[in-house]
């Protein structure tokens, strides 16, 4: 089985976000980067599926050279090779078109990625890729097994779960608890250094949306503290002052 796992290179979930250059660029000073947490779940499940039934895992990133440490980490976790499409993705459609261009010649049985990237939170790239390749897409997938040519999986629906079966190939947006995150071991880290990482240039795509500026939410006012022995006044304040009850 051939699996393609798409990963994003995103600021750590605990990163403080600020901007530079007149609010047109993310301030990267002091920001740690990580593999998108949802993508990391997808990768972990791909590694488990490969351990069980063999096959290969290619990891794909649409990003600039600063993604390489995350790509090497994915290789250390268990991917066999990597492809990076060299560009700064700013739009879901553009990103999906790059993934589809790579995937179309690869005959992948499974294309896995996170349910969304945690920088832009769009949650649409898996659907776009699926439609561009003419194959089904599902998200958010929280359980996945492969039997022969059939995927048996569960996706989260509002207030519960739906269990599905579908023939491969598929594009799946993943989330926990599909697998536990994996930490690379020393052997993985050593072998990752020599695994192939191919850098390709992006294909031309119509520019359908472009970022013009960033902004931050208005700062929150001070928290009004209510003494515990007067907790009941909270309900009055929520009614008369905040007017939310």
């Amino acid at each position: 089985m051939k699996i393609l796992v798409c990963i994003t290179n995103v600021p750590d979930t605990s990163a403080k976000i600020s901007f530079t250059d007149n609010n047109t660029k993310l301030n990267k000073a002091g920001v740690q980067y990580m593999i998108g947490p949802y993508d990391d779940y997808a990768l972990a499940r791909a590694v488990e599926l490969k351990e069980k039934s063999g096959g290969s895992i290619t990891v794909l990133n649409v990003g600039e050279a600063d993604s390489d440490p995350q790509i090497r980490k994915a290789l250390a976790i268990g991917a066999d090779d990597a492809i990076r499409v060299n560009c700064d993705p700013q739009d879901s459609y553009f990103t999906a078109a790059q993934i589809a261009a790579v995937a179309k010649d690869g005959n992948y049985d499974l294309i896995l990625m996170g349910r969304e990237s945690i920088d832009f939170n769009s949650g649409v790239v898996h659907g776009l890729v699926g439609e561009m390749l003419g194959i089904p897409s599902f998200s958010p997938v929280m359980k996945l097994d492969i039997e022969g040519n059939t995927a048996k999986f569960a996706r989260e629906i509002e207030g519960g779960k739906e269990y599905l079966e579908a023939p491969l190939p598929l594009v799946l947006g993943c989330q926990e608890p599909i697998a536990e995150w994996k930490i690379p071991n020393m052997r993985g880290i050593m072998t990752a250094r020599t695994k192939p990482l191919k850098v390709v240039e992006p294909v031309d795509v119509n520019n359908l949306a472009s970022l013009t500026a960033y902004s931050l939410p208005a700062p929150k006012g001070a928290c009004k503290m209510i003494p515990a022995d007067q907790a009941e006044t909270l309900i009055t304040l929520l009614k008369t002052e905040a007017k939310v009850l």
Partner: protein
Amino acid sequence: MSVLIFVELDNGSIKKTSLEAVAYGAAVAQTQGTSATVLAIGNADSSELAKAGAYGANKVLHANDAALSNENAMAYASVLAAAIQQEGSKIVILPKSGLSDAMGARVAAKLGASIVSGVTELPDLSNGFQVKRSIYTGKAFATVEVKGDIKILGIKKNAIEAQEGSGTATIESFSPSLPEGDFTAKVINQEKASGELSLTEADIIVSGGRGMKGPEHWQPLLDLAEALGAATGCSKPVSDLDWRPHHEHIGQTGIKVAPNLYIACGISGAIQHLAGVNSSKVIVAINKDPEAPFFKAADYGIVGDVFDVLPRLTKAVKESK
């Protein structure tokens, strides 16, 4: 040319977030000098669908093929694409949700349309077509120029104040042909908590963290939620420990919520949790640790023992009714 709005149904009722999408779409239609058409998929009475008229829709297309009874995003996308073509729509409004994102994505790829998800305000038409959207899980916003001939916008809860008016909408049955390729997946089973208030729709959420000390101690929180008519949520550690079901997990890697009132009980306020709740209108934090970071993000705070404070709040709510 009409602006097309997709609405989600829950047991035959239009969801509240979808009514906001209707109001948003109607407001955009007005700026474009055109009408607003709603697409509803699944079982619903005409009287319920007519509600869309009160929020500004002129017409409702109702697709109710039995094959559409499951929320199949691919089939829904085919229906939406057919509706866009029939109406000649250039602007399509979806309420941001897993289903809408999935179907919007497939439609965007079918039609070569722009898709922007997480929009928080009406578009700015003074210079092209610009929208503001939430990024970094609510920690920031981006202004995006939308350039496609067809524009699909996924709007976040509270992007607009939906006012119920007195307008009416005509209802038309809509039965486009459904491609077989949309039905290759078989639904084996569905597990759905019944009668539970949905977190993404709820006006009030009462949420618990590790400070609740274990699943057997959840009753005081559930009592307050019941008294307030609130949905219940939890922090990531709580769902990781299986104290509460996974679909209650609120935060950066869980559900993002935007209620009018969010009450956090025994949740310290890790940045990842705050990212999932920072779009709430009013936040209350109850924690015995005065240094808990949640107090910096909250509007009201009580430093105290949740097992003392919660029952007293429940009592106060009941007495104030």
